């Protein structure tokens, strides 16, 4: 049994920031993570982190851009908290050593990004996530915070109306252990592996979302899935929005700059918000103006080799190594790919969920600051702003009456559950996973319709049944990834169901969610958050109001 005041599940940007904050607030804090911190997917983020740093800029403008980007269902008080705290947090990152790119005066550089009224995206070449992740892990090392590395948390311990901690599986030894904590912070990241074509790592399986959901905390706004407009067609690997921020242009097969030509975004063009650009690209493809493999072209050839090497060195390598294309001389083929989950574990701006003792932060959480669509550069920002707030709050308000006994009981139950997974005689997890991923990418993609969504739900229900008898062929206790992937499959099923159900119920189009039957935004009926709750008979859907303050919903165009 391990016991701490604050336990952070997940060691990406948000988790690490929360750990540092909790430690500075004097709590006994530890981290438990299924990957070593530096392997976290935060490291793959490229473009930048937004903050109104400059004199001429104003955090209220940033707030407005974010509200508009969210298509008016972002909670405005939380958004204002985020944008107001942004400059302080970004400078704090720099003071912790993060190596931002610099201008001639030696100050941190900022560039333009999608959906922003001012170039306020602070960046570190095109490896901002990598720099942020490593800087935060360095700070955790500096403070000597305990990290239980390669421990896979399989369940939350919920008893007597509160969260007592978690149960985790030691990947190296196969042991199960209980972790008792007065506050458990879920910073488990996204769920891209629910889809086949995604920028996300193999580890992004929505574990935290699923665990919180089964512990009675709702998943919020899950239908809002961001499809990033520029991912490589063969692998889904991300090509940063920074390319467009630096002046990259999107072309169709007729050589037209379609964002302007066909009026998708007459003002912002390529730098419209991501949902607008993704839909535009796929429309071009559907109308016969795309290239092979449903792609359009992202052209950087007018930049010259020097500029690309200096500011976009990573995508230079990625395009060459993974798509065999040289951005200096050729346009890069790109298509929309799943990238981010605006939805997640429902929580407030301090990270508190409905369940006392449980917090959520980062991509796993839904505060909501991104509403129906997230602006580029706001995800890394969310990690540090709310990471700090959650860490501090958890340190100062953790429960003092949690029960080790409840956790011990839970360990026994989990041991039995995990062992029973080894008894199955049915299919292997990879087959079930593939079917779910395929149907989600086919039917719950950028463009959705009722029939497709219902087909997807049916496939997911079938997959659940198949999962009852899933067969783990590897019987070893040492680093059994067959087993861990089978455990993850349950998370994928829960998340896929919540996404599809939310999408089916929401009969309007807003932000990243687009319905063939209801192509307009409908504020009268749908200015609300979707809450999917777990019951033994399946998910139920409820709705909650959006926090609207000074930015009243209006027509959204770029």
């Amino acid at each position: 049994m391990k016991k701490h005041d604050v336990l952070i599940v997940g060691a990406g940007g948000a988790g690490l920031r929360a750990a540092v904050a909790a430690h500075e607030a004097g709590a006994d804090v530890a981290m438990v993570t299924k990957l070593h911190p530096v392997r976290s997917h935060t490291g793959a983020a490229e473009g930048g982190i937004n903050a109104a740093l400059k004199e001429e800029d104003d955090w209220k403008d940033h707030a407005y851009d974010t509200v508009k980007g969210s298509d008016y269902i972002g909670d405005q008080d939380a958004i204002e908290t985020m944008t107001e705290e942004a400059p302080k947090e970004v400078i704090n990152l720099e003071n912790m050593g993060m190596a931002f790119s610099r201008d001639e005066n030696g100050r941190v550089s900022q560039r333009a990004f999608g959906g922003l009224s001012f170039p306020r995206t602070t960046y570190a070449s095109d490896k901002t996530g990598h720099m942020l992740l490593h800087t935060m892990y360095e700070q955790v090392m500096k403070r000597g915070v305990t990290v239980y590395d390669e421990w896979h948390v399989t369940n939350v311990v919920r008893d007597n109306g509160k969260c007592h901690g978690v149960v985790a599986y030691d990947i190296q030894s196969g042991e199960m252990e209980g972790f008792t904590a007065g506050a458990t912070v879920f910073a488990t990241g996204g769920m891209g592996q629910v889809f086949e074509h995604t920028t996300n790592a193999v580890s992004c399986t929505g574990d935290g979302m699923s665990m919180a959901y089964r512990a009675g905390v709702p998943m919020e706004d899950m239908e809002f899935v961001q499809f990033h407009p520029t991912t490589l067609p063969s692998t889904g690997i991300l090509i940063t929005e920074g390319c467009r921020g630096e002046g990259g242009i999107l072309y169709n097969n007729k050589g037209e700059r379609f964002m302007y030509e066909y009026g998708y975004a007459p003002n912002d063009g390529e730098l419209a918000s991501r949902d607008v650009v993704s839909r535009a690209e796929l429309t071009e493809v559907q109308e016969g103006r795309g290239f092979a493999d449903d792609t359009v072209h992202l052209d950087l050839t007018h930049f010259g080799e020097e500029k690309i090497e200096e500011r976009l060195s990573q995508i230079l390598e990625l395009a060459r190594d993974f798509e065999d294309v040289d951005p200096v001389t050729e346009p890069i083929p790109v298509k929309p790919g799943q990238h981010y989950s605006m939805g997640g574990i429902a929580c407030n701006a301090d990270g508190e969920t409905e369940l006392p003792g449980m917090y959520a932060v980062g991509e796993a959480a839904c505060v909501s600051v991104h509403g129906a669509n997230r602006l580029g550069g706001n995800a890394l920002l969310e990690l540090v702003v709310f990471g700090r707030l959650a860490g501090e709050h958890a340190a100062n308000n953790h429960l003092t009456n949690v029960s080790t006994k409840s956790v011990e009981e839970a360990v026994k139950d989990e041991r039995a559950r995990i062992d029973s997974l080894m008894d199955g005689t049915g299919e292997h997890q990879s087959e079930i996973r593939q079917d779910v991923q395929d149907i989600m990418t086919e039917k719950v993609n950028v463009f959705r319709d009722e029939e497709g969504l219902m087909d997807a739900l049916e496939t997911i229900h079938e997959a659940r049944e198949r999962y009852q008898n899933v067969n783990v062929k590897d019987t070893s206790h040492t680093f059994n990834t067959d087993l861990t992937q089978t455990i993850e499959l349950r998370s994928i099923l829960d998340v896929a169901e919540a996404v599809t159900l939310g999408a089916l119920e929401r009969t309007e189009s807003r932000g990243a969610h687009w319905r063939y039957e209801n192509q307009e935004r409908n504020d009268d009926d749908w200015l609300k958050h979707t809450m999917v709750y777990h019951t033994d008979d399946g998910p139920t859907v409820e709705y909650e109001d959006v926090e609207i303050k000074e930015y009243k919903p209006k027509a959204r165009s770029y």
Partner: protein
Amino acid sequence: MATTQETQRSEPATAEGKAELDVFRYIPEEDDEPHTETYEIETFEGMTVLDALIKIRDEQDSSLTVRHSCRMARCGSDAVYINGTQRLACNTQVSELSQPIDVEPLPRFDVIRDLVVEMNEFYDRMESVEPWFQPDHEPETGEEYLQSPENRKNIDTVLDCIWCGACTSSCSPAATDSDFPGPAALAKAYRFYKDEREGEETRKRRLEMLESSHGIYRCHTQFNCTEVCPKGISPTEAIMEMSRDAVKEKLRFWR
């Protein structure tokens, strides 16, 4: 991308879209000794070694285990030994390798199982050089520290380290001397050493710390690390620069 030093074998892969992989296998509960399993698969265009391993795992042998996550050479999980060189499985094309393709765990690291090695010693080495920002003064602007674009550019490459372990696996002194931090840790130390924001006092202190009897001077300038680094970092040059600086400071005495 690192150059490969493959042992000369038969024809290159993907003749008729097939490949043969000889993979190191070892499951502690089941095997007394490590052994090699041969797998044949069909390939697709652009297939990487990681793709191949996953395909084998999903279609033929679900016990085959390799750490991996991002698939884009950023997380550093999947450093392995392919045809005699340390490579990342996810950015090594099957089509560029001679067959049969040998896949083994990183040399000189303890094997936990199959291609999964014990990384804790590597992490300890990284931590031993105090790899966190230690400025010896407050920011001049009251907000961020100033840093010239040139200085930022100087550390650009070394900042790219993904902790994959390839370099340390290829280093002779690191193999036998556990007090020697190894190329990754020393390159990380260099990243801070060259960062002008830390200030002169910290720079001096870092250099002194690295000048211990098992520090920077243990480097044999083999350049193995430089050859295998998937991010194009040259730890050897970083170490040599710090060594030269240290000696220059000593010689300054006489000037």
